[in-house]
């Protein structure tokens, strides 16, 4: 992150902190990228504020299982945001405990979250509240467990028999 980028991001973060006290738990600098750690209950509001500040491209949503490293909460949802008009990048992290996998969906803010959240659900089992069609996307519908969790064996495969019924999907989304 260049000095210029840091200066541009500063007022945005301060503005959000002012509007939503307690929503941003922490700020990290990771190899020069600004990382915001958002409170899970308020993450939707944080995202809405960031969208209003010009972050129009939700580049990616990544799930992370922290089982094998030091952690307080097991899971992590990471949103990579980019602002095309302002040329800024920011990353938002939301910690998710294992016993309560609910995360507010951001599909109402960015359409690109639709499949991205489906993938995160498929691979880790997050429950995105408010998602129009939260079903598996990369693995087949009969798949049991969540493949990218660290306790899922790397070489374990699962057979698919039959095709999935897309009739309900057609009416949703």
């Amino acid at each position, binding site marked *: 992150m260049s000095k210029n980028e840091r200066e541009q991001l500063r007022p945005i973060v301060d503005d959000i902190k002012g509007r939503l006290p307690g929503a941003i738990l922490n700020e990290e600098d990771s190899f020069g990228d600004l990382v915001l750690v958002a409170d899970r209950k308020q993450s939707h509001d944080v995202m809405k504020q960031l969208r209003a500040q010009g972050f129009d491209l939700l580049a990616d949503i990544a799930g992370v299982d922290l089982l094998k*490293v030091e952690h307080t909460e097991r899971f992590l949802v990471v949103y990579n945001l980019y602002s095309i008009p302002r040329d800024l990048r920011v990353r938002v992290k939301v910690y998710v405990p294992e016993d309560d996998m609910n995360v507010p969906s951001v599909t109402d803010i960015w*359409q690109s979250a639709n499949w991205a959240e489906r993938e995160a659900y498929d691979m880790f089992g997050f429950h995105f509240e408010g998602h129009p069609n939260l079903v598996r996307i*990369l693995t087949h519908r009969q798949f049991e467990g969540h493949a990218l969790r660290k306790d899922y064996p790397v070489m374990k495969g699962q057979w698919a028999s039959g095709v999935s019924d897309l009739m309900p999907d057609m009416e949703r989304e």
Partner: protein
Amino acid sequence: MTETDMADKTGKIELTEEELIHRASQVDETSLEDLDTEPMYVNVGPTHPATHGAFRVFCKLDGERIERAAVEIGYLHRGFEKIVEIKHYTQVIPYTDRLNYCSGLSNNVGYCKAVERMLGVAITPRTEIIRVIICEIQRIMDHMICVGANLVDIGALTNFWYFFNAREKMNNLLEALTGARLTYSYVRIGGLAWDLPEGYEERIKATMKEIPKAIKDVTGLVKRNRIFIDRTKDIGVIGPEEAVNYGFTGPCLRASGVQHDLRKKRPYYHYDEFGFDVPVGENGDTYDRIMVRVEEMWQSLRIVEQALKMLPGGPINIDDKNIMLPPKDDVHNSMEALINHFKLVIEGIKPPPGEIYDASETPNGELGFYIISDGGSHPYRIKCRPPCFYTMNTLKRLIEGHMVADIVAVLGGLNVIAGELDR
């Protein structure tokens, strides 16, 4: 005159032209809307030849119009993100080849760039320019497949051969450099597998001279072709705001009129020193998506030409024993180099703990790698952001309301590569 009067001995009714026109004008078209038709359900794919890989579009049809659609992907899911968690950082490179298999080198470069940023190393000037050259050659090749295949899907076969003749020459060119024709694995973290062979610059120049003819031939055939325009204009239209909202990047986003190119916005490898334009479309339809790609080929040719002039001498690999393997001669002759070699092969590269998101402009758009390192030999987590995952998300929205035959036209224009889509 009654119909029986007109019927000749065979029982056929013959009408004059005026009669026919008169009768046609009498048909009450509004009454057709009252016709009660059953919706028809049709599967396109997963083994449809025009799906460029394997995925399924399930359509509810009203006549030939698509009323609703559902898209299913995942038929080519190979667990890229899972398998790399038990590999060393260097061992991930061949897996990245198989993401967008039409432009493997761009994926290699994208991944290595991310890991190098994590390691905090700067690669040598010669390697930077070589990477630009191979990336741009791959961009031309990728666009050739995309445009060529898209045109085949809508019935224009000749263009495919024109492009594939030229692409074959570039394939031979890259084969001479990397030894492979599809999955190159030529880039290394901190450098390249080997330097350019002798006289290779001349060979690139000679090959690049043959590309303009192919592009001109194809644009000459399609640009003002009535059938092509009818099949692609105003098909699959998406506006600029919506395209960004859906996560479009690369040529598809530019076709919608958004001037966004990571090579210009966040220049890496001296892209800011090259003279090239970023073509943008106006309508965001399939026609624009094809034409933006065609124009990008011209721009890539410009970049290759300039890069060849800029190509400096010097080493290709950085001088860091923790990242690069020592020269083979030293391994055979010195104990330190031998130990170094073994340590690197067995333990691999160890980036410092932390996480990084690094993106590069590949032919399809923004290819991002989100890498988490725990300081060990294996990446803790690699999340790949494939550009076409997000464009494919839009397919449902783009084809609803269009004809069945438009599915392949839209699909080809989005350039969906199943290897990258499903990982």
